[in-house]
């Protein structure tokens, strides 16, 4: 049996938060662009994206959160139909 009585002191306890390293989209030098006409909704890009910034909708295709996408290029490489191209960041 344990009673949790709130600790009145500052403790090193952290909670889930998006963007702990800031807007990591600023890390990009190239960015992925999806051609959803080619997308077959296989979900490979979403499964392999290390940053969880590409999401697949079974009807519409893939969308990218450019605020956090680091532009690593994995999505473009794993896409079996080459629906994603890496273009130079402006």
């Amino acid at each position, binding site marked *: *049996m*344990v*009673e*949790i*009585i*709130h*600790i*009145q*002191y*500052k*403790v*090193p*306890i*952290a*909670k*889930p938060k998006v963007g702990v390293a800031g807007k990591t989209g600023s890390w990009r030098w190239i960015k992925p662009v999806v051609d959803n006409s080619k997308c077959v909704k296989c979900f490979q890009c979403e499964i392999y994206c290390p940053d969880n910034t590409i999401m697949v909708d079974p009807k519409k295709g893939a969308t990218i959160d450019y605020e956090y996408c680091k532009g690593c290029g994995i999505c473009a490489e794993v896409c079996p139909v080459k629906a994603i191209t890496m273009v130079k960041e402006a």
Partner: protein
Amino acid sequence: MPKVVLTGNYTVALAAKMARVEIVAAYPITPQTGIVEKLAEYIDKGELDAIMIRVESEHSALAAAFGAAVAGARAFTATSSHGLLYMHEWVHWVSRARIPVVMAIVTRTIGTPWNIWSSYEDFFGQRDTGWILGFAMDNQEVFDMTVQAFKISEDPRVYLPVLIGLDAFTLSHTTMPVDTPEQEELDKWLGPRRQGYVIDGSEPLALGNLAWPEDSEEFFMDLQRGMEEAKKVIREVDESYGKAFGRRYGGLIHRYHCENAKYHVISMGAWSGDLMEAIDILREEGYPVGLIRMRFIRPFPDKEMYEILNGSKGVIVFDRAISFGSLGPLYLDVAANLTKYTRKLPYMRNIVAGIGGVNVTHKDFYELVKATIDDLEKGVEPPVFTWHHRR
């Protein structure tokens, strides 16, 4: 109340059992081994409803105890000397996480060379870690302090781990009578475990993520505040234990013959008993000397120390450890903390003795204290630092 005759080690085990510990991390090291052996016996006989994690090292012992404590279980471990040094990184980790844990240390000399007898450098090595540090003089106090350690550590004003020291062999392997409370009374007094947060899947929490300097310093300043609060809590616990079970010691300091004392001696641990015998004789001979026996050195009872020593004609601090290249660690604490309250210190003497486990008798104490007071009365100041050694 059942009175038993137990060695210090078995007393620690009994206290942990009666405090209803739930997880025991066990690793053997002379002279602590009896503690984990007795706890294993209690568990296997069904007398203690706990899980024993037979770890593969002391470093893992405190790590495992910490893991269980973070998950919400009352955890306990014990070690000594090199085992304590091996887990030292964990000693810091636990207190800085503000997780209540209790640990017993059977103080033993550190090598090189191998030496199994009592001195306090392993205990003092934990001085700066943020643990509450208590030290017992006899097995009765070992029992009382170990049980109280859980209540102090789990107090929401504190939430800091507590370490209880006892001398190798002099206490750990020596049988003494120990008075114990009734289990139901102790359950009522101690209550269930309390902690400030728990990591058990009920909500996603991360303990110990990287913290920037300013944030880190704020955590540590709050640790210092917890230590300050602990002084109050230790006294409260001593009082309420006294009320419930009939034994109180006076909080962080046990005063012996301090009323109308002009000279004071300070010590900690089992040899304080021999020092008390010496003081009895000196008092009979008319020497106005009193003993300040440290029960807790962290938090350090600075104000109380000053209140007793204000106006003292001479103070001797007996240290059973040395900070090589400097003085005894207890002396360093006493002298430095007095400067918080006064610019004028009394004459203070540091006598280091008993290192390596050398036996220091009440005769040694009698001669040393008598000689010091005699000199001071004559207007002669003995050297401030002496390492008293005899074969």
